[in-house]
């Protein structure tokens, strides 16, 4: 009896073994074939904000050139900087750039860091207000007070004043923020701080990748915030344009410095206006916290790819340079626009090209241009 059942068991496991082999052998074979010596794999990680665009860029590059595989993990700006610093990835990505303190932590052998503003995007205020038609218009003081929790109901005079055509419900406002620390929060809070300063109000949460919000509910990542807004009646939160569009969330028209109400548009026009005229510093950490142009959408941020100035592996460096230059080409930049990002101003593209050329592979270190 025991022997019989033991025999049956071994028969079954033998059959499983066949199955296993049937699946495993071709896989091994494919893996064996797909690793020719000239293949290069680059690994990057960081901001979630530009992730849809980066992934698309890198995928298309791979389709054109099968020897080059680029993986990008959207794990947040802070984590991207940390992985870049500890040498786990070939390049990092951050919506907040890098602070001097963060740069000072980089290993000596990097020869410094190049911050490349590869694209820019809009941060929109999405909301969930049941039963209204058309987008809500928010004045500078209205959205400032909402995020300072001074305005807590959708039917407040301050909001109603700019929306004569809408019947705003008596619904309390719930603020949705980021639970993780993020470059989107950094860009949003720097804008809010600039607006507060212009209006002589104190911006209490401060400017950082993670700030102590007053009475908010929080979610992880741009997608998490978008989902939570969708779920919560009366919610308002800040998300990157593409994520709000993907979730089908309504976006508020915001009043800019010239008192025009501007809707975030998918063509990148109002965003491009915002980037116009921003001064380009030597380290390319271009900030436009409160754009002046009358047609500008007020909350726009660049997002940076972080690369070493010096790579020990020549092949890695050459591949990375070719990849980055490719992403700056017109076709790739218009792809950015299609995905709801902002096309880079040509002056910035020229500066980027020059900067990318300075990446070295020889032990000799280059000075910053």
């Amino acid at each position: 009896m025991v022997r019989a059942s033991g025999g049956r068991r071994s028969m079954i496991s033998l059959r499983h073994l066949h199955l296993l082999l049937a699946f495993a052998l071709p896989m091994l074979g494919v893996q064996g074939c797909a690793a020719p010596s000239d293949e290069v794999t680059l690994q990057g990680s960081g901001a979630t904000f530009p992730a849809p665009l980066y992934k698309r860029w890198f995928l298309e590059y791979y389709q054109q050139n099968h020897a080059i595989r680029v993986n990008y993990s959207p794990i947040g700006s802070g984590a991207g900087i940390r992985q870049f610093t500890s040498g786990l990835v070939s390049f990092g990505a951050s919506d907040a750039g890098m602070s001097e303190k963060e740069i000072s932590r980089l290993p000596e052998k990097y020869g410094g860091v190049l911050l490349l503003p590869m694209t820019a995007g809009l941060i929109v205020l999405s909301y969930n207000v049941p039963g209204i038609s058309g987008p809500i218009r928010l004045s500078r003081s209205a959205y400032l007070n909402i995020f300072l929790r001074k305005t807590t109901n959708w039917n407040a005079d301050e909001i109603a004043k700019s929306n004569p055509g809408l019947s705003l419900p008596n619904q309390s406002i719930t603020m949705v923020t980021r639970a993780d620390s993020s470059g989107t929060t950094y860009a949003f809070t720097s804008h809010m701080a600039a607006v507060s300063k212009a209006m002589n109000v104190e911006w209490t949460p401060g400017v950082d990748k993670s700030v102590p919000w007053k009475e908010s509910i929080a979610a992880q990542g741009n997608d998490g915030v978008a989902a939570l807004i969708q779920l919560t009646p009366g919610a308002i939160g800040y998300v990157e344009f593409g994520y709000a569009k993907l979730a089908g969330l309504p976006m508020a028209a915001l009043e800019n410095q010239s008192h025009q109400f501007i809707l975030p548009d998918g063509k990148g026009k109002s965003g491009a206006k915002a980037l116009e005229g921003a001064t380009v510093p030597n380290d390319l950490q271009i900030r436009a916290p409160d754009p002046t142009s009358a047609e500008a959408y007020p909350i726009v941020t660049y997002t940076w790819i972080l690369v070493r100035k010096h790579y020990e592996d020549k092949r890695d460096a050459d591949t990375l340079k070719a990849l980055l230059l490719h992403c700056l080409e017109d076709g790739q930049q218009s792809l950015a626009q299609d995905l709801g990002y902002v096309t880079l101003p040509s002056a910035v593209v020229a500066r980027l090209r020059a900067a990318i050329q300075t990446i070295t592979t020889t032990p000799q270190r280059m000075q910053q241009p």
Partner: protein
Amino acid sequence: MKTPTVERRSIARPPTARDLAVDASFKWATRAFAAFSAVVVTLIVILISKEAMPAILKYGPSFVVSRHWDAGKGQFGILPEIFGTLLTSSIGVVLAAVFGIAGAVFLTEEFIPLWLENILKNVITLLAAIPSVVYGLWGIFVVIPAIRPTCNWLHAHMGWIPLFRTPLLSVGILPAALVLAIMILPTVTAISRDAIAAVDPLLREAAFGMGATRWETIWGVTLPTSRRGIYGSIVLGLGRALGETMALAMLVGSANVISPSLFSPADTLAALLANKFPEAASALDLGALMYAALVLLILTLLVNVGGEWIMRRDSTSKSAVGEKAVSK
């Protein structure tokens, strides 16, 4: 007549060198494995404490009673997270205990045919195999819309009760606790079921024989006799509830508030760690998170010790209870 003698002799032979070697290596292997778990736990505690040291030295006990978490200003406090962790876990465990023990009784006391019992048993065990993130999504898309009307009605009509002080917007303590209850239900049910099934059938038959009803038998004999195992299941469930991360990070709202309202958003220690850990930059940030992890570990340890203590205290008086129950 001859064959059995041979067999008996072969059974009674002295152990060979190989038998002794197998015995000894097995004994040492079990010792090594037992020691290994203890060493791993100790190493984890040491490592966490070491990483937490900068924060422990800087903040000391004020860390657990302060309410603010502001990494930018270097202020760290986890009182809201401790509160949220304990509240969600205790609601979750109470619900899971009620339903889990009732389910375990239902599955063992011959209310249903054996084949159905086996199906139900496996379905409940299957709940344990569902990934945490799926529970989170289920909570968001099913539980919250389902309970929201009732919760908001309670808030509108009985808002003066502190438990219903705020409306249920979306995420909050109650949805988190409900999902948590379902997540730990299989643990509670499976272990309680085994404990109840292990009760000597003679005891049960004796109770029936003395004229006890099924109800009296369950309450007077079966449950008191198996209570050690049932406590164990609840303690295990509570341990899992305290440490559950992903579903709670999605459902609790990550809000730094302490509110008695069941519908208010809150935060838990595990969710805090999951949210803040990837971006902790400085040694102090990391230290604060490790300190929070240490607090969570201590909370879990206290729960286990507490559970053990209740079990011990109970099992000393168990025979008396059993006698009383039987004499009834």
